[in-house]
């Protein structure tokens, strides 16, 4: 994708990228190198802008530290905000040992925080002192990467914006001359402008915007690549997390992982349901099962998991509602033995109260689990529980992130959604557009009993049955049966269904008896008629014999007459 800016420069950028691929410096930040097609522009400056607390420092630090640890590129940090000791402490909580990197001369941290109140602007100046300092630090450890963390606040206190602009341009050129892969962070400017001086994004080769919204205690972080000179890049807003493992851009995958949709079908473990879906759901697709409490959502999900484990696939079952032991026990009561799969190491049940963690931490833990366990099938039971963290409308955003994370790994997923009242199905509708197939389960009460119905509401990319099925929870799991419809078009389930079946059986019996009776009558009649036919045939034979005899007599007499006539004529002539 090319950023849709003015077409001419986009075309030039594209042409440049085709002529020679832009060298890139991988950041090692999970997910980022995927959306940026390999990392930041090598040997060039990148601007990372965002309001305070959006994660700019975390992004910059991870770029620097992973550069040292994973890519063997020593780095220098100039921080204008934090003290070194605060920074060392903060980064330790993400598992980075800054002190050892400093000791090994792979990292230099230069904390240059100055109180703005101590600075008095008295006239024109340049930043020669800063350049000296940068030069020295870079030479000392042979740095390839450099981070300047919010330098603009200090520069603003120097007073002369025109000089600052000129010196910033010189600084960015200086990075290029020395082939330093640089990250410069900036607080967003006021009145909606991206940067304080309004041109930093112009002189940067790459500009990244970070955003952090907290709405009713749900935090949502987003990252967008605003520009990337000479390179393709994703233009979407990507959600990201700051987890105990650091910065994670979702869907947290490398560029190579974006694969074509699979044509392979995955069985739901219920033959008749597979038939309704013309063979099962696609691998990597998302199946939504919604319904009220006690409609059997978990059972259908467990059945699918059971089938997957039978095929030797790994499954992750995330249960927000039940503990592992309760889930296993409940499923055993309907004949689904999950314990065997847990024992075999194919099934991992992750049971937690969603309220025990923030949403961001939940997603971070999910990402980690997907990476470490590597499941082919994942169940989220039930997503509505996530909403305990905040208002219902946030489910969609969260589930969207979860689905992204699962899809990008080609994981077939089942999401169950608990609905309480009928209008709540609209919340499921909001999420359903993100999913590929959608089953709705409904309990109906009729004649004083409850029956379960299953509808296939949609199934993307495949023909599927529009019919409703009744399903039963038997000691062998869930079982689908065709529904009965009485002559008035009413669906008959449960004992009404049984009564109707009995009625049909009685009618059939009666008919069979009637047929048998008729057959006997027919046989008798046939015998009588056949006897009559035999008599008539005899009569007919006798009659025809008599007639033939009579005819012969007539012929003989006629001949005799002719002889007599001839004789008498001879006599007269003589």
């Amino acid at each position, binding site marked *: 994708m090319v950023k849709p800016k003015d077409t001419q420069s986009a075309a030039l950028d594209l042409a440049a990228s085709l002529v020679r691929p832009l060298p890139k410096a991988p950041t090692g930040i999970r997910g980022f190198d995927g959306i940026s097609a390999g990392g930041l522009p090598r040997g060039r400056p990148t601007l990372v802008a965002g309001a305070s607390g959006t994660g700019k420092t975390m992004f910059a630090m991870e770029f620097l530290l992973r550069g040292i640890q994973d890519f063997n590129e020593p780095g220098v940090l100039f921080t204008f905000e934090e003290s070194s000791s605060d920074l060392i402490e903060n980064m330790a909580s993400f598992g980075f040992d800054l002190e050892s990197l400093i000791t090994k001369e792979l990292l230099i941290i230069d904390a240059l925080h100055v109180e703005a109140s101590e600075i*008095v602007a008295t*006239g024109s100046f*340049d930043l*020669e002192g800063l350049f000296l300092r940068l030069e*020295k630090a870079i030479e000392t450890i042979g740095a390839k990467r450099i981070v300047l963390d919010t330098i603009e606040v200090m520069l603003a206190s120097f007073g002369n914006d025109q000089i600052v602009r000129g010196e910033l341009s010189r600084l960015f050129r200086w990075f290029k001359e020395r082939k330093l892969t640089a990250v410069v962070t900036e607080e967003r400017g006021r009145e909606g402008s991206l940067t304080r001086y309004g041109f930093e994004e112009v002189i940067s080769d790459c500009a990244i915007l970070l955003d952090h919204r907290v709405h009713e205690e749900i935090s949502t972080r987003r990252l967008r690549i605003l520009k990337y000179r000479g390179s393709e890049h994703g233009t979407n807003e990507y959600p990201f997390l700051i987890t105990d493992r650091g910065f994670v851009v979702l869907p947290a995958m490398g560029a190579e992982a974006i694969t074509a949709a699979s044509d392979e079908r995955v069985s739901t473990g219920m033959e008749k349901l597979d038939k309704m879906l013309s063979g099962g759901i696609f691998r990597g697709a998302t199946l939504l099962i919604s319904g009220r409490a006690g409609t059997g959502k978990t059972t259908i999900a467990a059945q699918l998991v059971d089938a997957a484990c039978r095929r030797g696939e790994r499954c992750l079952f995330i249960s927000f509602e039940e503990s592992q032991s309760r889930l296993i026990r409940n499923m055993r009561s309907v004949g689904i033995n999950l314990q065997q799969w847990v024992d075999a190491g194919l099934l991992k049940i992750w049971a937690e109260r969603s309220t025990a963690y923030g949403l961001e931490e939940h997603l971070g833990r999910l990402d980690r689990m997907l990476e470490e366990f590597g499941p082919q099938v994942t169940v989220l039971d039930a997503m509505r529980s996530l909403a305990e963290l905040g208002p219902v409308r946030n489910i969609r955003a969260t589930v969207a992130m979860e689905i992204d994370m699962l899809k990008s790994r080609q994981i077939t997923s089942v999401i169950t959604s608990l609905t309480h009242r009928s209008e709540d199905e609209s919340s499921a509708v909001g999420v359903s557009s993100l999913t590929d197939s959608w089953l709705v389960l409904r309990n109906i009460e009729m004649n004083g009993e409850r029956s379960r119905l299953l509808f296939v509401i949609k199934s993307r990319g495949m023909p599927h049955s529009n019919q409703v099925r009744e399903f039963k929870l038997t000691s062998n799991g869930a079982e689908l049966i065709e529904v009965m419809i009485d002559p008035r078009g009413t669906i008959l389930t449960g004992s009404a269904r049984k009564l109707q079946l009995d009625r049909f059986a009685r009618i059939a019996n009666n008919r069979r008896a009637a047929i048998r009776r008729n057959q006997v009558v027919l046989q008798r009649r046939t015998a009588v008629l056949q006897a009559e036919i035999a008599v008539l045939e005899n009569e007919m034979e006798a009659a025809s014999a008599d007639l033939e005899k009579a005819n012969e007599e007539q012929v003989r007499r006629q001949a005799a007459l002719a002889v007599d006539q001839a004789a008498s004529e001879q006599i007269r002539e003589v």
Partner: protein
Amino acid sequence: MHLIGEPIHWVLTLYVNGASPRSSAALANIRKICDHELAGRVDLKVVDIRTDPEAAIRDKILAIPTLVKHQPAPIRYLVGDLANEARVRTALEIISVVDQP
């Protein structure tokens, strides 16, 4: 800020970059003040970052020229060529001294 009658002494360091126009202007501007109002009550040290870059690094000086007022407290960094005389005097707290009887 200062007790009347307290002997006030200024300790200043000016960081310059050789004889660049800005550095020369800053030096001339501060010399003028030191030679008049502050005569006899000031230690002015001039550091040239061309000959002594380590000093600028050690003292965390980023903008050149910068005049640091170490004494009297509080510390102040006067960034620029000291062309704005009113600001320089205020920052150096010279006005309060002149106002003293």
